[in-house]
């Protein structure tokens, strides 16, 4: 088990190294960094001084190793636009994005699993068919459109929920949370629904399909032949078997929730990392873009690792294979 975790961790570092190369190459492809720092009338000699002082005259691999070593300590350099360390900017924005992503995922999991189980067990009811139809909308409508429609309905027409921002936030150390104030919670509803809707429909359809599959298996038939109650069969035996693929998808989707929060954050002017990234793209603020790329990959890689480990907790068969493989 430990060896398995370690091997996966080494693979994860390999992936991060590759992403680091891509992030680093952004600096070089977007033009000479010195040109972006100095003004137009700086002399060639002065440019050379700047270049030397920043270590930009070193061979490229040396520069890359220096960048990667710094990035590993969360030092991503200074933003061109804000004149502040990128890591400080990211740390300020991260709580907003993480809270949004977690709320969206919880929303997607809870409603996705409930609706999926319902529409598998009561396949022919009106409600189940309605869920199926609604899930099509969730899958096919683009996020920004859903966000704008929600704003129009609940913020403009009904005036129940704020149309932008996080509301009041409370500082807990360096973490700023909107979960403890009423206005913060209200502000969280629409962005979470917008961000989680796609995931919810995905999970719902997955749970439904998996559940129907599991209900056809021999061990469910045998459980029925043993006279177990319908409830024990559906929610004990069937649901647990259904959840294995759901964990995978929900886990991997958590990464994309963070990545796709760019759009939702833009629509709702949510002060998170996604909004920071969009602003950075507009201003060609490469240190922020590179750091964002690295952060998102780190989150993805971490989640993959956690999902792999979670599998073995749910499925005893994998515990055995993992033990044998190492």
């Amino acid at each position, binding site marked *: 088990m430990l060896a398995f975790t370690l091997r996966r961790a080494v693979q994860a570092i390999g992936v991060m190294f590759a992403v680091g190369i891509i992030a680093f190459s952004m600096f070089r492809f977007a033009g000479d960094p010195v040109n972006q720092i100095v003004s137009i009338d700086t002399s060639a000699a002065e440019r050379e001084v700047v270049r030397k002082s920043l270590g930009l005259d070193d061979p490229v691999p040396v520069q890359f190793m220096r960048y990667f070593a710094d990035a590993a300590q969360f030092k991503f350099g200074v933003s061109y636009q804000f004149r502040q360390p990128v890591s400080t900017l990211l740390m300020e924005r991260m709580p907003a994005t993480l809270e949004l992503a977690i709320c969206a995922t919880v929303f997607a999991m809870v409603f996705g699993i409930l609706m999926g189980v319902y529409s598998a067990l009561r396949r022919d009811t009106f409600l189940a068919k309605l869920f199926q139809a609604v899930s099509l909308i969730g899958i096919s409508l683009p996020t920004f459109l859903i966000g704008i429609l929600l704003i129009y309905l609940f913020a403009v027409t009904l005036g129940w929920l704020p149309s932008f921002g996080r509301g009041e936030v409370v500082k807990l150390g360096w973490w700023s949370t909107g979960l403890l104030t009423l206005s913060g919670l209200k502000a969280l509803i629409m962005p979470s629904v917008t961000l989680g809707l796609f995931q919810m429909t995905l999970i719902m359809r997955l749970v439904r399909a998996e559940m129907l599959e599991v209900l056809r298996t021999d061990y469910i038939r045998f459980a029925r*032949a043993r*006279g*177990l109650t*319908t409830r024990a069969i559906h929610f004990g035996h069937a649901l647990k*078997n259904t959840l294995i693929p759901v964990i995978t998808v929900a886990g991997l989707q958590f990464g994309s929730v963070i990545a796709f929060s760019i759009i939702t954050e833009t629509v709702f002017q949510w002060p998170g990392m996604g909004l920071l990234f969009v602003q950075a793209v507009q201003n060609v603020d490469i240190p922020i873009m590179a750091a964002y790329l690295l952060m998102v990959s780190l989150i993805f890689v971490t989640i993959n690792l956690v999902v792999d480990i979670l599998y073995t907790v749910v499925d005893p068969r994998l515990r*055995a294979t993992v033990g044998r493989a190492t």
Partner: protein
Amino acid sequence: MTEPILSVRNLQVEFASRRGTLRAIDGVSFDIAKGEVLGVVGESGAGKSVTGLAVIGLIDRPGRIAGGEIRLAGLRIDNLPPEEMRRIRGKRIGMIFQDPLTSLNPLYRVGDQIVETIRTHLNLSESAARRRAIDLLAEVGIPAPDKRIDGYPHEFSGGMRQRVVIALAICAEPELIIADEPTTALDVSVQAQIISLIKRLGRDHGTAVMLVTHDMGVIAETSDRVAVMYAGRVAEIGPVQDVVRNPLHPYAKGLMGAIPTLAGDDKRLQQIPGSMPRLSAIPRGCSFNPRCAFAFDRCRIERPEPLPRGAQSVACHLYDNVPAESAA
């Protein structure tokens, strides 16, 4: 004769399909007495398994029991409400399926599955149910049951898993066990062990057993009586020695002729020409008539009803109006 544990009368099972209703079981009748083992043989698709599923009430849509009645110790069970039928399943009727590798839920310890079943049917505490589960595992021949009870299904071999499945089927002392090809998925040496286990359990507990199989060897070794099924009907039923040594129905004769013997005569085994009709194309009259060497005009028009013939009963026109002595 005392009342049989299981009494099936004129059972009909239909499956609704896009091209009309298919009748998988058409007028099947048989009894199983207390402690008796009834073997049910026939080719694939003859309706053996469907009969078993009908008895335990697990015919799923689009199938349904279209007629006849099933009685368990006198109580009619084919039309019970689902919840009452659920209480009978596992408690009064146990079932063993063909494939032990897929019959157990892979995510639960075998002990938890046994304890869950025991506690569903018997009013026992968690610890009492666990003790009973260990006893059951010991009874079906699993070594070190107090340790193995905490194992997961994938940690058991196929034969051991089938023993766990049997323990699950008998955990509430049912009056009837339906074993649907319990040895088909196992290798030959394990088959013999499982068969003798089922036989022993039936004897020790006075349980009636309905043993569905297509293996005549298994039937000959285990059963007291045997029913030969063909195309959803019982062709012949009777004591196992009589049916094996002196089969009456031409189809039963064909089946017995296809069993290799150890006597060593190296003649080719007899085979029955043709194959069983599809459910959508069952011929008029006797469903076996196109493959039957003895078929005559009446067989193509009129469906034969079961005729008593000594201890046997045979559905064949050859035996109608013929004195028992000169029966072919």
